[in-house]
């Protein structure tokens, strides 16, 4: 029960955009889990009949067919699972690596810090895609595993930098010094005191890495550096491009996978802003404009005086305002009972 209520608590504290992101992501995760089980056709089945090649969406084929008569919808469902699987695995591995590197660098200091920071920075500044191409290009089989390892191997520096910076600030705080004085072992300090304080940062880093993995894997597949016999969203786009789907007007082939990628990406970005704001309460006020007593107040405006705010709302403003959560604050006793 407490886990459920903790989850509900978390949900309540998430800002609107993060909730949208979470719901959207949930839809895709659901699709990934049950999708491949409910595909109407076998995605690889090539239908030899020419009349079924490159057909627009119909009742039989909800998203149309490819050049070789394959069902786009089935491919899409399988593709979502493959792409998400890959991205999540990369996310986990790379995040673990970045936590290891980031915390170690901050904790060990001195030479190790310099060295690890240098390595991170070098891999950050070298452009990713060309390096990925170089690595994958030489592998005879460009399977899922290879892609996962390569992406994870290049995806940790960003998170490592951020985590290192945060660990440095925490490390210098008094409660850590207190733990050290009391003789607590370093690894215990790291595990029980430092990492719990960085949970939201690690979560945000994870989401970022997943985002990167999706983008990179789709781009790599698009240029042909993936297992072209599997159906990921990227390979779908590769085949669509190489079979001239665009020029032949077969929008149903390349639009669905592309939009799926864009939506997953948007969901992750939205989730990330939510996690950021949760973990760093100061960011909440960094929302640009604030709604004070129902009115939009710019940070550079003079401090508003309540009397001048009440009654100045336009009709449209009032209507839009009724959708925002802040209106709850208005109507409760908090707003009225100021004496």
């Amino acid at each position, binding site marked *: 029960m407490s886990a459920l209520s903790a989850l509900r608590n978390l949900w309540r504290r998430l800002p609107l955009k993060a909730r949208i992101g979470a719901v959207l992501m949930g839809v895709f995760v659901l699709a990934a889990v049950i999708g491949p089980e409910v595909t109407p056709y076998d995605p690889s089945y090539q239908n030899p009949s020419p009349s079924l090649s490159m057909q627009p969406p119909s009742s039989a084929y909800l998203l149309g067919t490819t050049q070789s008569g394959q069902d786009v919808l089935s491919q899409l469902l399988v593709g979502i699972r493959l792409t998400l699987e890959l991205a999540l695995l990369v996310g986990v591995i790379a995040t673990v690596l970045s936590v290891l590197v980031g915390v170690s660098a901050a904790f060990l200091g001195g030479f190790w810090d310099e060295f690890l920071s240098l390595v991170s920075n070098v891999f950050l500044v070298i452009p990713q895609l060309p390096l990925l191409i170089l690595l994958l290009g030489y592998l005879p089989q460009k399977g899922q595993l290879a892609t996962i390892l390569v992406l994870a191997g290049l995806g940790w520096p960003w998170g490592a930098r951020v985590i290192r910076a945060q660990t440095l600030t925490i490390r210098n705080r008094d409660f850590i010094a207190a733990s050290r004085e009391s003789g607590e072992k370093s690894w215990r300090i790291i595990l029980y005191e430092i990492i719990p304080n960085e949970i939201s940062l690690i979560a945000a880093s994870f989401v970022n890495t997943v985002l990167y993995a999706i983008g990179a894997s789709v781009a790599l597949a698009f240029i042909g550096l993936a297992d072209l016999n599997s159906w990921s969203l990227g390979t779908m786009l590769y085949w669509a491009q190489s079979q001239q789907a665009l020029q032949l007007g077969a929008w149903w082939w390349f639009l669905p996978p592309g939009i799926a990628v864009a939506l997953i990406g948007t969901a992750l970005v939205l989730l990330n802003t939510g996690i950021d704001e949760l973990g760093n309460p100061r960011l909440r*006020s960094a929302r640009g404009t*604030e709604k*004070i*007593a129902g009115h939009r*107040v710019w*940070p550079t*405006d*003079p*401090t*508003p*005086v*309540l009397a*001048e705010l009440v009654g100045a709302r336009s009709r449209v403003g009032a209507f839009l305002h009724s959708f925002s959560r802040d209106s709850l*604050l208005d109507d409760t006793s*908090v707003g009225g009972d*100021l004496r």
Partner: protein
Amino acid sequence: MTPVLDIRDLSVVYRGEGGDVRAVQNVNLSLNPGEVVGLAGESGSGKSTLAYGACRLLRPPALITSGSVRYAGRRGGASGAVDILAMDHDQLHKIRWRDISIVFQSAMNALNPVLRVQDQLLDVIHAHLKLPRGEAREKAASLLDLVGIPRQRLRSYPHELSGGMRQRVMIAMALAADPEIVIMDEPTTALDVVVQRDILAQIVELKQTLGFAILFITHDLSLLLELADRIAIMYAGQLLEVGTAEEIKREPAHPYTKGLLNSFPSLRGARRDLAGIPGSPPDLRDPAPGCPFIPRCGYAVPECKEVDMSLARVRGTTGPQHVTACPIVSLSSPESSQEGVLS
């Protein structure tokens, strides 16, 4: 005489998800021309919020929920005082710096890190004084002379100056438009004692020459005893006692003031034990009824919960302006044990 700044019944809240934080509650304070009023209190007592709120400089989620702030300076016009809280953007813009200027707490943070000192001074000069270029530059240089900084520092960046120098630059800037009121927010807190002394002496001298009023905010009551004409003691967003420096020093009326005075040693006189004030300030989100000092007060009695916190003349005092919010304790009350009777 009419006060140059008259704050009446001012309340400021910070509106948040968990409810309103009542940073300032129904405060009355006035500032007379050429006077130095000290505003003393611990961190979080609301003193900065009071001062910035009165100038409408607080950022969201701050909200002013009651009161008026009447400014009756020479630019207030023949009609008398104008209410800052009722001003619109343009009117506010006119009184900023020209009439009321501020010396901020941390000069390192209050100075633009990418502009030279000269450019920042010129910004202020051009904004308020219509001077041709050559004269403007001369004015900037003379402002530095005023606070005792060598002229070649005009070309420096803020990070190239020492803490004391930065603070002096802030003071010079605050005086550029010849204001009537200067609000000083803990101007010497971040500096060491020697520099502090220097700067305070400078401030006093400038005040005597130029004749502006000062609202001096600090947590250091001992400083105010030397510097201020009148002192207001603030706690948990409310004023507890107001009086002249002499009155506060010789006959503190409020238990909190007594506690504050006992908290620091005096260089002269007999040695005595230092006593702090045990406990910590209350949560301003959900204020308890009555006096906010009850949990830490050595004199607390059940009636304290019904006190309405209005400032009334201290019983048995000679000064007409000496007021306190505590009707329970009088000047002749015995010393308390400093332990909370009501916890």
